[in-house]
């Protein structure tokens, strides 16, 4: 067998992560390096887009082209990148606040367009970068600096959210199971269409005790061990309802017949329309009055 084209270290940049020691995001980064090595695309053909948050710093720690943009807008920017150049491998990452609070409105549209990109949410049920405020995925009643008397709202369930809009690939992982998480990231990237992995990535500084790696290890259950058939969308939704109580890992749903992606469709349209192009100096002729 040939030696693999790339190794995990080829994707590691010289920047030193600013994360707190022990932050779950370190694990996610390691898993991502390995998944990218397994995929085998060179770093310069990868565009890694994020928003703002601790987790959104992740593109800078890779050797890929990165874009650490503004809070909540990674998905629109990533779609622009992919549609402008469908040859690129586009990965998007960010936090639970970035993706499901300020950027929540964009998720549904990324899914309905089915642009071929992989969205990794590093879900720590808290606002890490801004130091511990309530997150949209935090449980009702949670006391934080912005909900000192306990939150009065239900959390968003990210898994149900993306399943409901028809995402073709939906999985959950935790760095507590490194090989499992790595394999899921790789599978998500390989899925031809919009793919989503909710990665339970503990915030050691502001997160709750029951959301730390140790708790994950004790709690996690693979969907495979439950005998879940990932082609069963309704069952996937049923299992996803346990978000916040159970920690299921693995593929909730994978569309067995992936529909054409948006980027593939625009290529077809461009090819079909290209015959009608006119030279630059004749563009105005369309307005000529005869």
């Amino acid at each position: 067998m040939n030696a693999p084209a790339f190794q995990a270290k080829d994707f590691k940049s010289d920047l030193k992560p600013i994360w707190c020691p022990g932050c779950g995001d370190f694990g996610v980064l390691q898993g991502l390096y390995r998944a990218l090595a397994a995929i085998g695309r060179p770093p310069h053909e990868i565009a890694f887009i994020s928003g703002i948050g601790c987790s959104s710093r992740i593109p800078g720690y890779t050797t890929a082209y990165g874009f650490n943009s503004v809070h909540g807008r990674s998905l629109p920017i990533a779609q622009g990148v992919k549609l402008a150049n469908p040859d690129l491998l586009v990965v998007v990452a960010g936090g639970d606040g970035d993706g499901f609070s300020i950027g929540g409105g964009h998720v549904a549209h990324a899914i309905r367009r089915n642009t071929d990109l992989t969205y990794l949410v590093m879900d720590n049920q808290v606002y890490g970068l801004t130091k511990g405020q309530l997150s949209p995925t935090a449980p009702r009643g949670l006391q934080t600096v912005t909900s000192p008397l306990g939150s009065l709202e239900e959390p968003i369930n990210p898994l149900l959210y993306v399943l409901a809009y028809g995402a073709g690939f939906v999985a959950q992982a935790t760095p507590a199971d490194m090989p499992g998480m790595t394999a899921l990231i790789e599978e998500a990237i390989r899925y031809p269409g919009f793919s989503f992995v909710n990665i339970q990535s503990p915030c050691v500084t502001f997160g709750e005790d029951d959301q730390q790696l140790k708790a994950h290890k004790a709690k996690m259950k693979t969907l495979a061990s439950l005998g879940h058939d990932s082609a069963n969308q309704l069952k996937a939704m049923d299992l996803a309802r346990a978000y916040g109580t159970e920690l299921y890992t693995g593929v909730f749903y994978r569309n067995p017949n992936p529909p054409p992606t948006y980027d593939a469709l625009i290529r077809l349209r461009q090819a079909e329309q290209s015959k009608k192009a006119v030279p630059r100096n004749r563009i105005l002729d369309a307005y000529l009055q005869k």
Partner: protein
Amino acid sequence: MVDDLILGMAGSGGDGVVSAGESLLSAASSEGYHALMTKSFGSQIRGGESSCRVRLSTNKVLNPGGALDVAVALNWDDFFRFGAELPLSVATVFIYEEKAGPPPATLKERGVMPREMRAVPIGELAKKSAGTDKAKTSVVLGLLSGWFGIPSTAIARGLKKKFGNKGEGLLEANERALATGIEYATAHPLAEQHTLALPTKSGPKLLCDGNDMCAAGALFSGVQFFGGYPITPSTEVMQTLSKEIWKYGGVVLQAEDEIAGVGAALGASFAGKKSMTATSGPGMSLKTEILGLASLAELPLVLLNVQRGGPSTGLPTKPEQGDLFQAVFSAHGDVLRPVLAPTDVSDTFKITVEAFNIAEVYQTPVIILSDQEIAQRKEAIDPIDTSKLEVLERRRPTEAELVDYSRFKLTADSISPISHPGMKGGNYLGAGIEHNEKGEPTASGTMHARMNEKRFNKLDPLKKRTDLFEVSGDPKASIALIAWGSTAGVCREAHALAVARGLKVKLLVPYLLYPIAEEIYQSFFASVRSGLVVELAHQGQLYRILRMFTDVPRGLKSLARSGANPFQPSEIVSRLAEMSPEVN
């Protein structure tokens, strides 16, 4: 003989006055006239009352003009609803549907009573000739042709285009209605002749509006991506590109909101493609954060803002020049982004090409400030010579520069070669966080100062671009007339009238609104003692920005009023005359 004719018509939704205006415009332009049309609708989305103004001229048309030479009312209520758009004078020839009854008192109350009031049984003539009063507008076109000399052959050609394939004798019926209108006019001559002179120079014309020219300019520049969200009065740019851009390998993304639209456009630019977005007031407000990201990440991006009345929803279908402060100042952080403004339909094309060139060369977002009038008025313009227009590209790194590449390298002209994903060796981290030359995040004050300097310095050459300023008139004139955007068209006419009256006035029209080209203004101001900066916005925003950046002569005043109240050349001339002690 007259060489300029302003017509206005109003009717209810089914009357088709706008379509009649379009026929007139296209007939006149195919004969070689310069022509301009604006339309106005009532508040209903569909089927409500509508009006249009058409200005025909043997010379270049600079603006929609003031009082009507010819008014057509198919019923009184609809006509009065458009009072502001359809001003009358005693010299107006007023044609109205006889069946609508005699002019109500309201007409008198408006101050002017046209000398020539013509009641014509328009509906009846239509029924008699075409068998249906739906052919009313063809009768009206016949009247206009007969009374004002608008070539009937061209109108007939237009009818053929419109009804030729509609079948069932529709074309023939309308041709009969047209002939009937002409006969009626010939049999009932006007008291005073108003025949339009023949065009001085015939030749093909382009029939288009400002939004058409923005889309065409973008395509000419090689736009590859448009991301946006529909909003009046900018949507036509997205609509046109949605048809056209694919032919050239590009993409239009109708995003879920304006933030996503500009975000996707910025993503496409990051991916190395020429890209743009278009919007109006409310959408512009939403796009602001991403504009700042474009400035910091030094990514080319063109943003068209077709101004409408504001704030908030304001007057969505009316022009205002109230977004200049927003274009220039709406950003957190200390940032400069170029702002350009076209002044008419034709130059919207060139300004769009210029915007792409500046965006690409200087790696910056560029705002084009158009407005509802320029964007949506249909005009017959002379063909645009594109042979001398340059299309520029961003400076990409050479092989050598890709060895140990620095995305934000500090260079002599402060422009760093820019790579994009897919380019081996050019890998970097784009970000909204401050960076060093390599693109690595930094919180260093020294580095921040250096990068700020770079981002400002790179745009300095723009301030020397005299070609982005139109200066005309006696260079030693002591009175200045300054205007931008659609108001420039009114001021060009006012300037010509003022000079003809012997006033010592010179005109300055900036296409580059920001950064303020201090030296260009200062040298223009050298002879100036007084004058006007004319703007269609309550605050007179350019005037205030000029006071911020230049030594404005004491006598230079702001002539400003809220949008949707277009200036007339005559009132500007009177104001200039007051400023001119030596002549009047």
